[in-house]
């Protein structure tokens, strides 16, 4: 846990527009995205932002559709902190933070409608494809929302369809064709402290400042998911500013890393 003194120094600097690692408030650490990092997955990606490292893998299986969407495939996303990711992470049932992380990334993907679920129908009412996105935090140095969101979409775009054999089992060895993915939703977290907006907080900064909005936005500049987190309230103006910053940032990230 961050020492109280470190926390105070971080906040004093933020007020002056400065950061301890001399980045600007809206400056990212280096982002790297590598796909195809696990041969067994239908799709996979490793994302590093500075020293934060997460991996995501996509697996497919057949499932029964929900009664109210009988012709659509289904999706489930989970995020987990691996014990190796930080000294305080522990093996065990998912913690509150992991559940929130998973659900926010899930919504950013789901609500953007970037997965064409109708193309994942095998037989209406009976059988559809289920897409599992599993995200693992391997090294935690802050900004997990951005990193996990990037890993999820990168793994989806990397994924190939497995083959359904005649006897109904799934052949994961012979993949063919991509998953039906249209668009590239990007999740950006913007923190706020005394009227300053900060991007890409590292682990210490993230503990010092919790209040943020996490925004999932799309190629055309629309927003498809939004969540305020943290222990302080925000004014309408702050929210409007942060929203704009998130959408602008997502465009830059999309252009740079997904062409």
């Amino acid at each position, binding site marked *: 846990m961050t020492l109280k003194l470190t926390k105070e120094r971080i906040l004093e600097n933020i007020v002056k527009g400065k950061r301890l690692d001399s980045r600007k408030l809206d400056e990212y650490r280096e982002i790297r995205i590598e796909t195809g990092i696990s041969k067994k997955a239908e799709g996979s990606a490793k994302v590093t932002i500075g020293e934060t490292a997460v991996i995501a893998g996509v697996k497919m299986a057949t499932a029964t559709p929900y009664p109210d969407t009988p012709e659509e495939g289904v999706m489930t996303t989970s995020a987990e902190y691996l014990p190796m990711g930080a000294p305080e992470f522990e093996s065990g049932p998912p913690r*509150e933070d992991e*559940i929130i992380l998973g*659900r926010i990334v899930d919504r950013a993907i789901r*609500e953007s409608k970037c997965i064409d679920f109708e193309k994942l129908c095998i037989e209406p009412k009976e059988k559809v494809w289920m897409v599992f996105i599993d995200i693992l935090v391997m090294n935690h140095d802050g900004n997990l929302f951005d990193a996990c969101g990037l890993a999820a979409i990168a793994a989806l775009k990397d994924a190939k369809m497995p083959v359904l054999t005649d006897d109904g089992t799934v052949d994961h060895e012979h993949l063919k064709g991509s998953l039906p993915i249209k668009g590239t939703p990007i999740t950006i977290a913007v923190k706020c402290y005394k009227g300053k907006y900060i991007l890409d907080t590292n682990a210490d900064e993230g503990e010092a400042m919790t209040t943020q909005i996490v925004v999932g936005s799309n190629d055309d*500049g629309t927003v498809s998911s939004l969540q*305020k987190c943290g222990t302080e309230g925000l004014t309408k103006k702050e929210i409007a500013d942060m*929203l704009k910053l998130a959408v602008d940032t997502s465009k830059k990230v999309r252009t740079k890393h997904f062409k």
Partner: protein
Amino acid sequence: MTKSERTDNRKLDEIRPMKMKIGVIKRADGSAEVEFGDTKVVAAVYGPRQIHPRHQERPDRSVLRCRYNMLPFSVSDRKRPGYDRRSTELGKVITESLQPALFLEEFPKTAIDIDMEITQADAGTRTTAINAASLALAHAGIPMRDLVTSVAAGRANKKLLLDMTKEEEDAPDAVDLPVAMMPRTGKITLLQMDGIVSPEDIEKIVDIAEIGCMKIYEMQKKALLEKYSS
């Protein structure tokens, strides 16, 4: 705004009928029941009190713990008792929407526990739970910067609307945006959204939600006043 063709004949910026009852759980330190259309929530507060398990204790502040729980018969298809990811998320989100209104640092080493039970679930369970919890906190005599007031606004069938119904939430272009705020300062403490929308429309929808919050705020104050003047 004018009268609309909303399924339940409400105006675009009109909320469903709301009833508030304070002091419904005798053993709790504070409690309230809020009915909002067909949604019904009971909230009860215990605390500040000693914290169990002890390792959750914080030396410099009270720990606010909120439980959001749907009763098995509150929904069409029976919900299995016990926690799921959704209730864990909502417990956390509600905690963070109430926390800015509290002076937690004044009660170090304690817990403030809020139990919110959804007895009937229609649209708006989380916002109704926040409204009920806020009243229960006031009823428990826990000092607050302001009441927290919550309602959702959104878009359906190309119209921006306050307090959408379940049917409106199913519109193909539906956007649902629950908001909680402290009306005195205008600070927003809950903001979630699903559905595709422009940043500009988000600002407009938040404005509409604010209108709703102000109405509910008046009702909350009135309910508390009646409780204490009776």
